Each structure stands twice: as structure tokens, then as C-alpha cells.
């Protein structure tokens, strides 16, 4: 049949009749038809139809809309709520399980979202945040390999990026560069002095316009003068108050730096907010690094551009790359291109993948958003399942209501408002939980999150979430209940249809899939973190204390060593150019060795140490011997590690010569590989030499076990004598080592917490379900008992149905989890192997929890007295 287009659109008509007052229907429909046929007669049916819709929508006016007496509505609502309250009260155990489960889920969701929100806030507080971009370079090596770095290259290319970008690329409005240290975000602590006051503070160097580009508010002095020349310094409020009575008083005063240079305070800025990924207590002009050598240049220079409003960063980076390629004469054959990363992303995206910024903490943020949603889903499924299950009890009520004439929509309303009530209670509980546990959560995560209680968006989104949850969780049970057929229920008990039973079971399986997934991930995550933490690093990191070499520690090192060695609590003293857990310096500077092939480049980590390094670190020598103070030629000797030996491609290394940095000497020994930095990276080739004049690096002290206190006292005394201008400060190697894994540690803790919660929530669901199943099967079990079944039989008969569901969930999840976890572990250079027993363990745990949860009900069932339950039959 051909559809007749010459009549007004039926749908619009129906819509109109939905809301239009009945007494108006005739005239209005008549008018609209007249309009429609009038237009249709002019030829354009389509226009007529469109106009019809237009007219219909314009009848959405107060005078024309069906009135629903607000009075009856209110009464209905109050009625709904009353009934809701009664029904919540009438089955307390059930309501407690249901509400607390949802509240737990919501509280977890809120916690995670607060954490995620906090992470995303990082560096977003700068008013020009959307125009700030960090410059990074992508190097395409001849092999086709792409590597990336945020470090501004030194030399020609760097000079162009720093100095000419502003004049050559119109979109670049301002250029700033600042130095970041390897170990701390902004460099090692430096000693400042004013009269008798001595403090160690960390800060950085930056271009003069630093405070114009970034929003670190100046509270005294001027923004322009802050670090306008090399003798100016800007200090934080905290630092100002350390030396002076007030920030204002600090302006114009002179502070001595490292017992060497004088800086005049030109500005005091507000203490750096916690959402800043740059942390510093002072800023000096970056020219210092070049002109006055304030520091050994172990700093990365980061360049940040302020682009014009609306400028396209991709276009700017294309222009920069083109500009650069015309002017940089690189013989290496590597192709360099420039990219721009939004400044506010630098905290979350800190690594590189294929030469582009990727990885970093962003992965955790995504992971946790997924976890939050998982938990919420699990909690909602719980709610849904329990509520549906409870319809066994509700069935009669529904039937009676229907018989006395309640409409289906009224029933749905009733149930939805009951669920809304429960959800709101759960929400109130969740907010209460979050509110009271927030301090603990903050301590746990090392953050300072506050509940945005005064923000409208917070309450708005909370309310929205509440409605969504109650709808998601309540829709199915409501419609399910309202669709029950009264005649059947009144005849017997509620019987779920096969389909709805399957649906319910499916939900349980799905819920457990999510929980098992979380549990497996957590176990693997924790395992990996522990592996990293406790693995043999190749050296003994316990009982090691180190002190930065500064002031007179280098020239008076021999005295220091002798004095310390004679003090109580100290076992051994040595020094190293880099802290043993963070040997980050790497060089591709050509290092030559005997038998080296032409063009063979190995990138080494160079470390200069004292004679006792091998002994103090407890390193193993696999070939040759360690350095020896008594062999004169050893001041020119080298040691390498096993990886270096492999990459250099030589055999019998002992006695072969190496030359590096104007120094030529023989290899005296090969060290067994040890971890020189974070476990996430592979061990790199290492070349170790002895340096008698080490003006940077660390003095390392091994204390006698259990005598840390004495050792510290000794060190304070000796260092105070030898290096009086510098306050005594020290670090424990094992503690510093742990800091490398701070974010993993936090994530692992959070994972444990939330996986545990997900399991608890799932189990609450299981508990509720088994309660209802037990109620439903009381008679069946009674009959079984009468016929001679023993308690054990009933127990197993009852429990098995739940175990099967959990087992199915387990079987579905394991392969998925295996793939996902394997994928995740690939990101670590050193990792645990996924073995079947990890999964078996999780399976056993889940099985145990399930049995524990269900058996509670089974025992009750098994113990029932059939005489009582069957009485009424």
C-alpha cells in the first residue's frame, strides 16, 4: 500500500492529543487541518507536514495543556513516599544490604572521581593555560626509529627555538625556558644564607618573563623586576618568612647563595599551589647558568611558548620544524622535527611513544575512570537483582493493587519512587562516608582533596547521578513488577519467567566478571609492584646514607673520609658522581676501546666513584678485580658492567684499554649488572672510573646495621666541622629508592582498596540473592528433608546454583584478564611472569568468598524444621 502523504502527520496528531485539553481537541484539530489542507493545496505536501508539526508544537501553551491538578499530584507523591518508606522498613535486612551496597559503590565512585578530578586539575590554574605549550623534539634516526624528548637541544637548534621563535613565528607571543633537575622537579636544594640564618631550598632558573607567562601571583615587589637580571631573585612566601619578618620586608634584601653569589630579592610570590607540577621556592634568571656557572649543567632546559589566542599549535610546530630544518646543519643524518604539547598535559603525559608524547600518569587516570564505572555498574546490578528478587514478596501487593484498579503507570511510578527513595538514602550515606573518610583518603593518596561542598556543579552532578542510578537500577524491577499478571500471582506464588531468570543470572555473572577482573588486575599489579620493590637490585640498598657534595666536601674529602671512618656507627665511606638509585646521566659521546668497530656507537652511563665503591655498594665483580687504592695506575682504570661488555662486543676485556673524556686506561674488572635507576627501564651499559676530584655528586656512608642513630650523630659532627657553611642534610637510599615508585605505590594501594570494595559489593548482592532464593525454596527443601535428605545434601543442592554462576564468570574473565595483564606487563622492562597459579589463587579466593556468603543462608535452610514450613500446605 502506498502511504498517503496527503493527510496530516499522524504522529504529530497523536502527540497533540497527548497533551491537549480534551475540550479543545475538536476546534484545534479542525484549525490545524484547515491550515494543512490549505498549504497542501498550494502544492507542497512536505511543507504542509512540516508546518503541521510547527503548529502542534506551538500549542504547548499553558492554556491548552491538560491540567494535572497539582494537589492530587502532591498527595500521590506523598503517598508513594509513605508506601516506599513502609516497604523499606518492612524488610530491614534486605534494605540494609541493598542500600549499603549501593552506598559503598557510590562512595567508591565519588572517591575515584575526586581523585581523577584532582589529577586533571594539575597545571590548569594558569589563566593562559590554553595558550601555553611545551616544545618537544622528535628525532627520526637513520634506522627509522623515532625518539622524543622535552629537552630543548643545546647548541644551534636550541638557540633558534629559544631566541628566534618569537621574532620568526608570528603566533609565538612569548618564549620562556626554565631548567628542571633530574632528581627533583626543579633541581637540588641549595643553601641560602642571611647572617646566621642558613636554609636549604630548591628552586630553578627561568627566563625573565617567567612570572608574566605563568600565574604564580606576586605578593611583594614587581612582576617585571622579579628576575630581570642575573642578580635578581624571586622567593616564595614561605622562604621570605624563613629569613624575614614579612614578605614586604624581603624586597631589596640580599641573600647569599651557596656561599658564593649574592642575590637581591626583587619579588615574593605566593607559595606554589598544590596543583602546580612545577614546585619551587625561588627562581633566578636562567642566564646565571651560562654566565655565572651557578650550577653544574645537569639540568634539562624546557622551553614553553605562549601562543597567540586561537593559534593552531600543529601549524606552529610545522613552521618551527621547517624553520629549523633550513638552519640547522646536522651531520648526524637524523631528522629533527618540533612538536608542541599543551603545558597542562605535562603532568599526566610525560613519556614518549614513537616520538610523540604519550604514556605517563594518564594511563592511571583512564584506568581509574574505568574502575569507577565498573564499581558503579556492579552496584547498580546488585540493586537491580535484589529488587527483582524481592518481587517474590511484592508480587501479592502488586496483584492486589492491580485488582483494585491501579494502572500500570501508577505502579511503575510507585516502584520508581521507592527506588529513588532508596537511592537517595544510599547517596546520603555515600556522601557521609566520603565526607568522613576524606582525610584518610587524602593521607592514603598524598593529596589534599576537599569536597566542593559549596559548588553548585557538585550537587547538580550528584543529583543527576542519583536520578540516573535510581533509574538504571530501578527501571527493570519496576517494569518487571508492574507487568506481573495478578490472576496468576493470586493463585500461587510469583514465578519468574525463564527469560527473566536467565537475565538475572546473566547479571550476576556479569557482575562477578567485573569483580574478578578487578581482583586479578589488583593481584597482578600488587605482585609487580612488590617485585619491583623487593627484587635484588644487584646492590645492598639498606643502611646507606648519602650527602650531596657541596662546599668543602670535595677539597677536604680525604680528611672527611678519615674522620668519618673513625667515628662510631660508620662502616665505610665513599663517593659517587651520581646517587646510586638514580644514575640518570647518559652520553653518546664517543667512547673508544680496544677492538672497537668503526661506527659502532654504544650509549653509556658514565659514573665516577671512589676506590671503595664496589665494597660499599656490595657489588659483585664477575671478572677481574675492583679498584685498588694501592695500585697507582688505578686512578686511570675503568670498570664496566656485563651489559656494556655485551654491547661493546669484545672478549677478554681485562687489560684492554678504554678512552673516555681525555682519559685513557685499562679495564680492570667487570661488574655484575645492577639496577642504576628505576626498575621500569632496562639496565644500561655502564662505564665506571675513579675520580680524585669530584666536585659534584654524593658522599655515600654505609652505617653499621642497627646503628643509624650513632652514625647520623657522627656525620653531623664531622660535617659541621668540615663544612660549617652548609646545613647538614642527608638522605636514606632505601627511602629515596621507594620514592621512584610513589605513583605505582599509590595506584597499587588504591587498586587494592577498590577491588576489595567491588568484591564486597558483589558479595552483598550474592548474599541478598541467596536470601531470597532460600525463601523461595524453603518448601522444596522442607519436602526434601521429609523425604530423607540430610543437611549436607541440602547445603550442596542450594549452594551449587550460585557456585555455577561464579564459576562461569571466572571462566569468562580469565582469558580476558590474561590478555589484558600480559599487555600491561609489557610496559615494564623487568616483570613478573603471569603464571596459572595467580589465576588459580584468585579463583580459590572467589570460591571461598562465594561459599562463605552463600553458606550463611544454606545453613539456615538446612536447619529448618519442615513441620513448620510445610504446615500450610
Amino acid at each position, binding site marked *: 500500500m502506498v502511504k498517503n502523504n496527503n493527510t496530516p502527520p499522524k504522529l504529530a496528531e497523536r502527540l497533540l492529543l497527548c497533551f491537549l485539553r480534551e475540550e479543545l481537541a*475538536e*476546534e*484545534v*484539530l*479542525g*484549525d*490545524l*487541518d*484547515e*491550515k494543512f*489542507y*490549505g498549504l497542501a493545496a498550494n502544492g507542497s505536501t512536505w511543507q504542509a507536514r512540516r508546518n503541521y508539526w*510547527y*503548529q502542534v508544537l*506551538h*500549542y*504547548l*501553551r499553558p*492554556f*491548552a495543556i491538560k491540567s494535572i491538578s497539582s494537589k492530587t499530584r502532591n498527595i500521590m507523591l506523598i503517598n508513594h513516599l509513605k508506601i516506599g518508606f513502609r516497604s523499606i522498613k518492612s524488610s530491614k535486612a534486605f534494605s540494609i544490604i541493598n542500600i549499603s551496597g549501593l552506598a559503598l559503590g557510590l562512595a567508591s565512585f565519588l572517591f575515584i572521581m575526586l581523585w581523577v578530578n584532582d589529577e586533571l586539575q594539575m597545571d590548569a590554574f594558569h589563566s593562559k593555560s590554553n595558550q601555553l605549550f611545551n616544545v618537544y623534539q622528535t628525532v627520526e634516526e637513520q634506522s627509522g626509529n623515532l625518539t622524543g624528548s622535552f629537552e630543548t637541544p643545546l647548541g644551534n637548534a636550541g638557540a633558534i627555538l629559544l631566541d628566534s621563535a618569537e621574532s620568526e613565528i608570528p603566533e609565538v607571543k612569548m618564549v620562556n625556558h626554565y631548567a628542571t633537575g633530574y632528581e627533583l622537579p626543579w633541581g637540588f636544594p641549595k643553601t641560602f644564607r642571611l647572617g646566621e640564618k642558613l636554609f636549604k631550598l630548591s628552586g630553578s632558573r627561568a627566563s625573565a618573563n617567567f612570572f608574566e607567562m605563568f600565574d604564580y601571583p606576586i605578593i611583594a615587589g614587581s612582576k617585571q623586576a622579579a628576575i630581570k637580571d642575573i642578580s635578581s631573585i624571586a622567593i616564595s612566601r614561605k622562604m621570605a618568612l624563613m629569613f624575614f619578618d614579612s614578605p614586604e620586608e624581603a624586597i631589596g634584601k640580599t641573600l647569599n647563595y651557596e656561599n658564593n653569589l649574592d642575590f637581591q630579592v626583587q619579588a615574593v610570590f605566593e607559595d606554589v599551589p598544590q596543583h602546580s607540577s612545577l614546585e619551587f621556592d625561588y627562581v633566578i634568571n636562567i642566564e646565571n647558568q651560562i654566565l655565572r656557572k651557578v650550577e653544574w649543567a645537569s639540568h634539562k632546559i624546557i622551553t614553553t611558548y605562549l601562543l597567540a589566542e586561537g593559534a593552531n599549535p600543529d601549524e606552529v610546530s610545522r613552521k618551527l620544524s621547517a624553520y629549523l630544518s633550513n638552519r640547522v646543519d646536522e651531520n648526524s643524518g637524523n631528522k629533527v622535527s618540533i612538536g608542541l604539547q599543551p603545558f597542562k598535559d605535562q603532568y599526566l603525559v610525560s613519556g614518549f611513544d614513537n616520538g610523540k608524547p604519550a604514556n605517563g600518569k594518564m594511563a592511571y587516570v583512564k584506568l581509574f575512570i574505568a574502575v569507577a564505572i565498573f564499581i558503579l555498574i556492579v552496584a547498580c546490578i546488585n540493586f537491580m537483582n535484589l529488587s527483582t528478587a524481592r518481587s517474590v514478596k511484592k508480587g501479592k501487593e502488586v496483584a492486589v493493587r492491580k485488582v483494585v484498579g491501579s494502572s500500570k503507570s501508577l505502579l511503575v511510578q510507585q516502584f520508581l519512587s521507592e527506588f529513588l527513595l532508596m537511592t537517595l538514602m544510599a547517596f546520603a550515606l555515600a556522601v557521609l562516608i566520603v565526607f568522613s573518610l576524606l582525610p584518610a583518603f587524602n593521607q592514603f593518596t598524598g593529596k589534599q582533596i576537599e569536597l566542593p561542598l559549596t559548588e553548585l556543579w557538585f550537587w547538580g552532578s550528584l543529583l543527576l547521578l542519583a536520578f540516573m542510578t535510581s533509574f538504571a537500577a530501578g527501571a527493570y524491577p519496576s517494569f518487571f513488577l508492574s507487568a506481573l499478571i495478578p490472576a496468576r500471582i493470586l493463585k500461587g506464588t510469583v514465578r519468574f519467567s525463564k527469560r527473566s531468570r536467565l537475565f538475572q543470572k546473566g547479571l550476576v555473572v556479569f557482575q562477578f566478571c567485573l569483580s574478578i577482573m578487578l581482583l586479578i588486575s589488583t593481584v597482578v599489579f600488587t605482585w609487580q609492584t612488590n617485585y619491583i620493590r623487593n627484587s635484588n637490585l644487584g646492590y645492598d640498598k639498606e643502611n646507606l646514607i648519602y650527602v650531596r657534595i657541596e662546599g668543602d666536601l670535595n677539597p677536604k674529602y680525604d680528611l672527611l673520609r678519615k674522620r668519618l671512618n673513625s667515628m662510631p656507627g660508620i662502616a665505610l665511606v665513599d663517593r659517587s658522581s651520581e646517587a646510586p638509585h638514580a644514575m640518570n646521566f647518559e652520553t653518546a659521546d664517543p667512547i673508544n676501546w680496544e677492538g672497537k668497530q668503526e661506527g659502532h656507537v654504544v650509549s653509556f652511563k658514565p659514573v665516577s666513584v671512589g676506590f671503595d665503591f664496589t665494597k660499599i655498594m656490595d657489588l659483585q665483580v664477575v671478572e677481574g678485580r675492583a679498584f685498588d687504592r694501592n695500585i697507582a695506575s688505578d686512578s686511570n682504570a675503568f670498570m664496566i658492567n656485563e651489559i656494556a661488555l655485551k654491547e661493546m662486543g669484545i672478549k677478554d676485556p681485562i687489560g684492554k684499554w678504554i678512552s673516555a673524556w681525555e682519559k685513557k686506561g685499562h679495564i680492570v674488572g667487570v661488574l655484575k649488572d645492577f639496577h642504576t635507576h628505576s626498575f621500569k627501564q632496562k639496565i644500561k651499559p655502564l662505564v665506571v672510573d675513579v675520580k680524585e676530584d669530584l666536585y659534584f655528586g654524593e658522599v655515600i656512608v654505609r652505617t653499621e646495621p642497627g646503628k643509624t642513630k650513632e652514625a647520623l650523630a657522627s656525620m653531623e659532627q664531622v660535617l659541621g666541622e668540615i663544612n660549617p657553611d652548609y646545613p647538614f642534610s642527608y638522605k636514606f637510599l632505601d627511602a629515596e629508592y621507594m620514592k621512584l615508585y610513589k605513583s605505582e605505590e599509590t595506584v597499587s594501594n588504591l587498586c587494592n582498596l577498590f577491588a576489595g570494595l567491588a568484591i564486597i559489593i558483589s558479595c552483598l548482592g550474592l548474599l541478598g540473592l541467596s536470601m531470597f532464593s532460600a525463601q523461595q525454596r524453603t518448601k522444596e527443601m522442607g519436602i526434601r528433608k521429609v523425604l530423607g535428605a540430610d543437611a549436607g545434601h541440602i547445603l550442596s543442592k542450594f549452594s551449587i546454583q550460585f557456585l555455577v554462576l561464579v564459576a562461569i564468570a571466572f571462566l569468562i574473565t580469565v582469558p580476558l584478564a590474561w590478555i589484558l595483564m600480559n599487555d600491561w606487563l609489557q610496559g615494564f622492562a623487568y616483570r613478573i611472569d603471569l603464571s596459572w597459579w595467580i589465576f588459580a589463587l584468585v579463583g580459590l579466593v572467589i570460591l571461598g568468598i562465594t561459599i562463605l556468603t552463600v553458606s550463611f543462608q544454606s545453613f539456615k535452610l538446612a536447619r529448618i524444621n519442615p513441620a513448620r514450613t510445610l504446615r500450610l500446605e
Partner: protein
Amino acid sequence: MKETRLGEFEEVILLLVGILDDDAYAFKIAEEFESQTARSVSIGAVHSTLNRLSEKGFLNSEMGASSPERGGRRKRIYKITALGHRVLTEAKDFRVSLWNQFPGLANG
């Protein structure tokens, strides 16, 4: 108490009801409004105003005849009441008095 003042749109609609006389029902009034003012209006808007004018007592209405292009449905015919007439006249007088005070015209 019901509002008894006359808005601009209301005044026009009231006048159109008078002009159309026996043919004054929502659809026709809307058409007439569009053709006289060259402004578009929805039937719903006109209907709403007619309803308001009735509530103020300026209009009466009763169901009229049906016709085939309306699907056989009847229409509601509006008529101006005596009060409506008085309000219209007052509005006109008020305007005229204003125009008379308008310098460019009063002395011209």
C-alpha cells in the same frame, strides 16, 4: 482580579475578530493577521490570546459550523462583547489623544 488592560498584540487580534465578524475563528484570524501585518504567527499563539481575551471578558465564543476541509470538525467562532468594544474604543481614544499632543502634528 483579572487584568483588564489591552496589549498591542491583543488589540490587533481583537480588531481582527471584529473585522472577520462571523468568520472569526483561530485559524482564520491567524491567516488574516499574517496577510495584514506580514508577520508570521502560529495558530497556537493566536488561540492562546483569544483564550486570554475571553477570560478578560472582551470576547464571547460559541461553536460554529463544520466544514469538510476541517475533517468535519466544528470551529469556535469568537464575538466581541460590549466590554471588548469599550476597551477597544478607549484604546483608540487614548492613542488619538496622544497623537494630538505630539508636537509635530498637534500644531500642524
